[in-house]
């Protein structure tokens, strides 16, 4: 070894190291010069803001430019439709199973898919930065504030929103989105939302692959009675925690145990950890909540009155107290909003960014007036659902005390104190969390304690349920397949429950790019999905073939029941559509674009949207 040291590092190792370092520097170093070629232009200049001044994204991102430029260049004569890339998070084995079949079906149509599995972090990164290839595959994960229709309709389809991953910019749809955002009359808003869904479906933007999977859960019914099935959430959800409040013990044990894959990244509710969003709302009181039928119900806010289109008065429920014994006052509520407006730019910002001012109208009566910058339709279903009450006496000087500058996400809140139905108890990171029932709460739990215990594997969760170590499996992260449910059915202490779901799995094509810009291509493509394969085979029958291409599926209070049906699986029909639209097939079977001289093809590509709508997004280059 000494000799080796004298002679220096092994040459092969040095070469490898050098190569790696060089690659890293290349990756992170000089970006290729942008703008040397034809500039990106928008059909409607109002969208320039999003594409050209959106921080590190879109035209400011060399990788996005590298991907997009060839897809906005007119295909040459005889050019094949490019390979279509689909990224799938490696934890989503069901998506992969379905896509294997769909890719094989696509090949019969001349489409070549490149389906790649990537880590969850990589998948998220690709999506957020709009570098996810051709189709964004995504499922719905419901949270109380996501019952509001705008959560999906705006974030996934509004042309002005960065989270519109398919970059669809339909002027009529965006106008409807703008109108619904300002419409506080629920009936009028419903109409606008339903109209928007009709445009979404008619223009063939998103492709719903399946509605589901069904919410199938197992729980220890020998120990617990009175579980609450919340539509879209199930019985064992930390997001819809009615069961944990209302379930009654059948035995002397008043300690309920819920198994979950993970626990908390940290215990600061402002730091945006996924589980802290749900568990945090059991410790801190939100202002309104949803009932089992997803109807908004008062929670910490006893009532609210609309003063005008931009103004509401919120009346705090009297007699509440924080877990350290201090009373909850309207001062705390005002402080929370002011604090969020001043510091928070994460999860709470999504709603509080629209807030203009707060003022105490009646301190004794607990009434706070909130004024928004514009008429705000999401007041009940989003603003009141998302916001919690922070104790002013703990949080008012905390930023300076902890020296976190202007970033509240860096705060360390080792023992959260709120006014919610559960007090934050013993916590061992990545192992267990104890939530102690606050018997003075206006919605006091029947149980004494709720424990969340980490069990990182599916087998572990099922095994612990079988052995009686846990009573519920947290249903946001894990639902049973029919075969798993069957496995547990014979156990005396276990009951299986099915709750109507609002879930979906869909694909969002990069519609601003070729070949998706061609409405006829999209029309054919929608016929290439065997959706029954997903619901019957992959989901083992625990799902529904979608009836329409909407985010707000049947059972969602905002669903439009009169949407056109999803195009059926029919490869012959798809082929006929493509043929009629000027497409042809190469000798190897791959689909070939219509010739550049085809005026109809050029018109469709420039128009992007179905005839009758106005495209507002990216234009073809040159």
């Amino acid at each position: 070894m000494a000799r080796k040291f004298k002679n220096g590092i092994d040459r092969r190792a040095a070469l490898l190291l050098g190569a790696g370092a060089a690659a890293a520097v290349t990756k992170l170093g000089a970006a290729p010069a942008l703008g040397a070629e034809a500039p990106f232009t928008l059909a409607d200049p109002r969208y320039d803001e999003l594409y050209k001044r959106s921080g590190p994204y879109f035209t400011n991102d060399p990788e996005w430019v590298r991907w997009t430029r060839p897809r906005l260049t007119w295909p040459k004569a005889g050019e094949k439709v490019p390979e279509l890339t689909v990224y799938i998070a490696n934890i989503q084995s069901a998506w992969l199973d379905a896509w294997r079949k769909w890719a094989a079906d696509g090949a019969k149509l001349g489409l070549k898919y490149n389906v790649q599995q990537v880590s969850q972090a990589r998948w998220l990164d690709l999506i957020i930065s709009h570098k996810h290839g051709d189709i964004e595959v995504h499922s719905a994960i419901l949270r109380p504030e996501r019952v509001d229709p705008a959560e999906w309709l705006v974030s996934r389809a509004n042309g002005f929103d960065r989270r519109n991953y398919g970059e669809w910019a339909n002027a009529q749809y965006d106008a409807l989105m703008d109108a619904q955002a300002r419409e506080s009359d629920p009936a009028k808003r419903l109409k606008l939302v339903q109209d928007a869904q009709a445009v979404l479906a008619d223009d063939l933007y998103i492709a719903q692959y399946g509605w589901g999977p069904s919410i199938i859960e197992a729980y220890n019914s020998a120990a617990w009675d009175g579980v609450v099935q919340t539509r879209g959430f199930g019985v064992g959800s930390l997001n819809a925690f009615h069961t944990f409040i209302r379930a009654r013990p059948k035995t002397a044990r008043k300690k309920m145990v819920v198994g979950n894959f993970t626990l908390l990244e940290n215990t600061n509710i402002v730091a945006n950890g996924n589980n802290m969003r749900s568990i945090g709302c059991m410790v801190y009181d939100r202002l309104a909540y949803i009932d089992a039928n997803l109807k908004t119900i008062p929670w910490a806010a006893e009532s609210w009155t609309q003063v005008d289109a931009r103004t509401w008065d919120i009346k705090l429920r009297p007699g509440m107290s924080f877990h350290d014994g201090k009373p909850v006052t309207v001062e705390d509520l005002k402080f929370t909003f002011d604090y969020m407006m001043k510091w928070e730019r994460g999860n709470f910002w999504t709603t509080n960014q629209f807030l203009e001012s707060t003022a105490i109208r009646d301190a004794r009566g607990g009434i706070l007036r909130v004024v928004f910058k514009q008429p705000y339709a999401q007041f009940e279903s989003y603003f009141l659902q998302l916001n919690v009450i922070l104790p002013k006496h703990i949080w008012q000087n905390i930023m300076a005390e902890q020296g976190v500058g202007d970033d509240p996400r860096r705060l360390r809140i080792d023992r959260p104190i709120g006014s919610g139905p559960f007090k934050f108890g013993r916590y061992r990171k990545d192992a267990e969390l104890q939530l102690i029932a606050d018997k003075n709460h206006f919605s006091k739990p029947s149980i004494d304690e709720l424990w969340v215990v980490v069990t990182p594997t599916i087998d572990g969760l099922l095994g612990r349920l079988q052995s009686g170590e846990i009573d519920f499996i947290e249903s946001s992260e894990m639902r049973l397949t029919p075969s798993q449910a069957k496995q547990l059915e014979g156990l005396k202490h276990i009951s299986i429950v099915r709750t109507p779901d609002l879930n979906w799995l869909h694909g969002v094509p990069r519609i601003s790019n070729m070949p998706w810009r061609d409405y006829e291509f999209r029309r054919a493509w929608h016929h290439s999905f065997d959706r029954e394969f997903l619901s019957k085979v992959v989901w083992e029958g625990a799902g529904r073939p979608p009836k329409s291409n909407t985010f707000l599926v049947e059972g969602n209070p905002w669903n439009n029941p009169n949407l056109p049906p999803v195009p059926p699986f029919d490869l012959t029909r798809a082929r006929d559509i493509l043929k009629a639209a000027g497409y042809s097939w190469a000798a190897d079977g791959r689909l070939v674009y219509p010739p550049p001289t085809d005026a109809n093809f050029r018109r469709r590509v420039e128009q992007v949207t179905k005839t009758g709508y106005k495209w507002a997004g990216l234009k073809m280059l040159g």
Partner: protein
Amino acid sequence: MTGFARYFVRRLALMVFVVWAILTIIFVLFQLLPGDPTAIFIDANFSVEMIERQRELWGLNDPIGVQYLRYLKNMALFDFGDSFFQNEPVAAILFERTINTALMVVPALIISVVLGTIIGAVAGWRRGSRFEKVTVTTALLLHSAPSFFVGIIALMVFSYELGWLPAGGMVSLGGPEGFWETISSADYWQHLLLPCLVLVSREITGPILLLRGSMLDVKGSDFIDILRAKGLPERSIVAHAARNALLPLVTYIAVMTGLLFQGQVLLEIIFAWPGLGREMVTALGDLDYPVAQAALYLMALVILAMNFIADLTYGVIDPRVTYD
């Protein structure tokens, strides 16, 4: 400077060089990882301003050279910074996780070495006996069985079906906290039993097979014949033979200790044991650079240190090894 001192200094210098090389490789690997560490932390809802500020805060907007030098300095000083997601110093997180891993690994290591040595020595001494045949066959079988598979089977039988042992975790819900309280509680030992036995079932095979082979070599040595000619009882001869046969085990134990600390990811997941391996895998999945880099670095350090100790110890316990 004596031969040993020269060797010590040379060996130490080499170790420093290897540490630098490892640190550099870790840094390069993390830079090559596809994806942005902000991705999992940043919700799609966040404003662009927020995303940019987060990158700035984490130093990800600095030139690569600046990031590298800062990283080298921090690692050298064991200043691992704060976790991207946990709002806690990485050192505190890893210290707790390392202790947890040690609480599973160390008992298994001790049992494996002590029992494995005895069984291996006896098997080697009794070459050709039924005991040797059974021992070698069983050891090879256990050595070939992946511990995660054995772990799942053990859980299914002893926890889920029979309910004799806990199905995971280090202690029961609300069980003891703190190091001394934990290790002095029956609850911890009850939870340890299954993962420990699964670990032992694999790790014991190394010492058994090694000692058996080593004993076979020693058994044919001249000094054994001399001992026998002197009329020493068989038990004493075995003891003399075993002492000499133990030498290769020293290196093996050192390497095994290092590997045990890094290689229990699957067992930690299966048994819901909040250890270092699980933390590292989570950190890698989340692109929590500070935690993942520090965990890899610590694991490498443990292996290097154990090898270093083995090299030095070998010379001390074997008089035939000289440094001149």
